[in-house]
């Protein structure tokens, strides 16, 4: 499995670096807004949306952007949004 990840990272390093930076920025913002569920929810919406856009760009560049892939990313983003927004009080 690590080989799989390394192989994927080597193919498009800049795209994955962008993804990691985006996710780290989201984490910083999330912790910055600790005890403020309203803003934390916004951070989660933004991060999930950004992840969805990243996936569209990533697969478009790879040449395999298909509806089934978009649905897969959409469901993962919805899963994250549902879990986080209903947990934040």
């Amino acid at each position, binding site marked *: *499995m690590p*080989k*799989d*990840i390394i*192989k*994927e*990272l080597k193919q498009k390093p800049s795209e*994955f670096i962008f*993804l*990691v930076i985006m*996710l*780290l920025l*989201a*984490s910083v913002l*999330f*912790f910055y807004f*600790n*005890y*403020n*569920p309203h803003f*934390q929810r916004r951070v*989660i919406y933004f*991060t999930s949306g950004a*992840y969805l856009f*990243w*996936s569209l760009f*990533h*697969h478009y560049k790879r040449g*395999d952007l*298909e509806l*089934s*892939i978009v*649905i*897969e*990313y959409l*469901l*993962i983003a*919805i*899963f*994250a949004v*549902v*879990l*986080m927004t*209903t*947990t*934040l*009080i």
Partner: protein
Amino acid sequence: MKRKLSLLFIPQAGNNYKALLTQPSFLGLFIALYLLNQSLVKSFTIFKPGVLGYSSKITVSKIVKLTNLERVKHHLQPLNYNADLSLSATNKAKDMFKENYWAHNSPSGKTPWDFFKEIDYQYSVAGENLAKDFYDNESVIKAWMKSPTHRENILHPKYLEIGIGVVDGTLNGVKTTLVVQHFGRPLDLANLQENQLAPTDSPLIPVSAGQPQVLSQQQSKQLISPLQISKTVGAVLFMVLISVMFIDGYFTIKNKTKRLSGSVTGHISFLAIIFMLLLFSQQGSIF
């Protein structure tokens, strides 16, 4: 049975070379499962109010002490504890439980200033901070200090007096502790009271929405936190999904399978970060 189980976790011809648990139908099932859990928790708070909740060890004296510590740190005069202001703060907290709201203004139109007027506290400047669902004193002060508007109240140079209401009750079916901080500067400074002693280790005053208020003191018992239930169920689902993605990725590379699928690295990175945020999300909110 074994074969059916392997279809869930291992990519093979029978599942179109993608573990069933990572396929859209099962991702939908994960979402549905979590929503079902949340609905059960919500139903429980409606049909059995007061069973789930947030236990707390917040005391009036400690909140006053920590507030003044922050002021001293910022070279400001510590605030005098005023029992009348504590009464207005306690009345505000009781009102929130009674009318079942969480805001500065009540649904019936009561503003924070009405509570000051009720106790006949004449002020030139006054303020209010609210907190709920916190476990300890330090977290409440930390949360207020992180918010610019609440911090401004705590560090307002014109305030001279403080009163705290810490009331235990049931809000939206969930047992919790409301902390209300009232600040003021008396209109007539000749009325400035000498620093009174905040009640030490005062336990919570229990109040329930729509029920007669019981003013006897009572130690808060350990409650089952709805946040903990949600976090646990969420964490289990996250761990299952991330583990299956690892297994799926491992067999895909091992068997050199070519397939049309989302990026395993992307999914794992995204889910791992969200999982971490879920685990470290803090209990408590301020207003």
